[in-house]
């Protein structure tokens, strides 16, 4: 019977932890001892068998099943990832939110009565009167008040968040516009901006 030490060396060899001196000792012994050689070969064969079956794949829906079993994700994270994946859309929606926000805040700030300055307009308790027989030159804009037209306006008349009366003798050469709802107002505001930008392009030669 061979010393227990030799079997120990075989395991060290299989663990890849044998030092060169011991390996030489083991090899010399194996050459002389048939019994140990058989045992060593059987051990090596066993390891090879065990290693040979070691390639397994998880079922194809494995990851999906794991993810569906997880506790619910926080909304914040989902939003954040969506924004990261759609940079153009996020930029556009951010722009849109800011635009609407600024428009709404302008709308809310403009609660006070105001009127464009023209010499012959009469202002009485938030009511602006264009007197009979008078001619007002330029556009008239009234915010948060009433506009009574008895004379003539040579330009546009706009009433924001208010009312407008046109007397039978009254006359407006331009357009008459009444803006009362937020969306009307936004529309008006955008028209104004685009009108102004068109004016910029139209005028440079005359200025």
């Amino acid at each position: 019977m061979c010393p227990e030490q030799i079997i120990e060396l075989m395991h060290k060899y299989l663990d890849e932890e044998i030092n060169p001196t011991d390996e030489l000792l083991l090899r010399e012994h194996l050459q002389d001892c048939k019994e140990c050689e058989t045992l060593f070969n059987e051990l090596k064969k066993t390891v090879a068998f065990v290693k040979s079956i070691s390639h397994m794949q998880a079922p194809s829906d494995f990851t999906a099943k794991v993810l569906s079993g997880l506790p619910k994700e926080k909304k914040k994270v989902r939003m954040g990832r969506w924004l990261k994946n759609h940079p153009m859309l996020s930029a556009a929606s951010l722009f849109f939110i800011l635009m609407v926000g600024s428009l709404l805040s302008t709308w809310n700030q403009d609660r006070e009565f105001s009127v464009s300055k023209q010499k012959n307009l009469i202002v009485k308790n938030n009511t602006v009167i264009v007197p009979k027989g008078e001619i007002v030159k330029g556009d008239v804009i009234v915010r948060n008040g009433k506009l009574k037209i008895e004379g003539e306006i040579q330009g546009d008349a706009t009433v924001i968040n208010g009312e407008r009366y046109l007397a039978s003798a009254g006359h407006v050469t331009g357009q008459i516009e009444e803006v009362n709802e937020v969306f009307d107002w936004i529309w008006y505001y955008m028209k104004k901006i685009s009108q102004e930008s068109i004016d910029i392009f139209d005028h440079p030669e005359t200025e």
Partner: protein
Amino acid sequence: MEAIVKKRIKQVIKGDQDAFGEIVEIYKNSVYQLCYRMLGNSHEAEDMAQEAFIRAYVNIKSFNQDLKFSTWLFRIATNLCIDRMRKKKPDHYLDAEVGGAEGLTMYSKIPSKAKLPESELESLELQETVQKEILKLPDKYRSAIVLKYMEELSLNEISEILDLPLGTVKTRIHRGREALRQQLRYV
């Protein structure tokens, strides 16, 4: 690889489940195989492997990021399987896969007219035999052998996963190897 996993773990801690999906993709085969070799049944193996990932997700904050993620994950999976094995009653499903042969169920034991090529049949038989012998090992030897030869981990990693001294791990592998040799020597 470890660097990618570390990055994904940081995202997972913030609550990003897609990042966790990538981690699952990286480790699913090895975790599934570990469970299958320990339990010998694909239904249970899938359940345990999924449970291991879900536990990893839930407890991700307790993972020490200076360590190797795979070691931690394998430790969760190994402990789950050992618990499962201890509770397990012997049971046999007809559609349970035959040991070692993925995709081969008890139905395939019922003789069919189509014949497999001889070499393929032999290799399936060998796989079956080896898996059966692994399942016969006591669980403490089995876990060490599976981690060493199926997952090809170093002895140091195995000692961390099993939370045992290196010497104990070596002894278990030696005894497991010897037990397998005695069963497989005439194959």
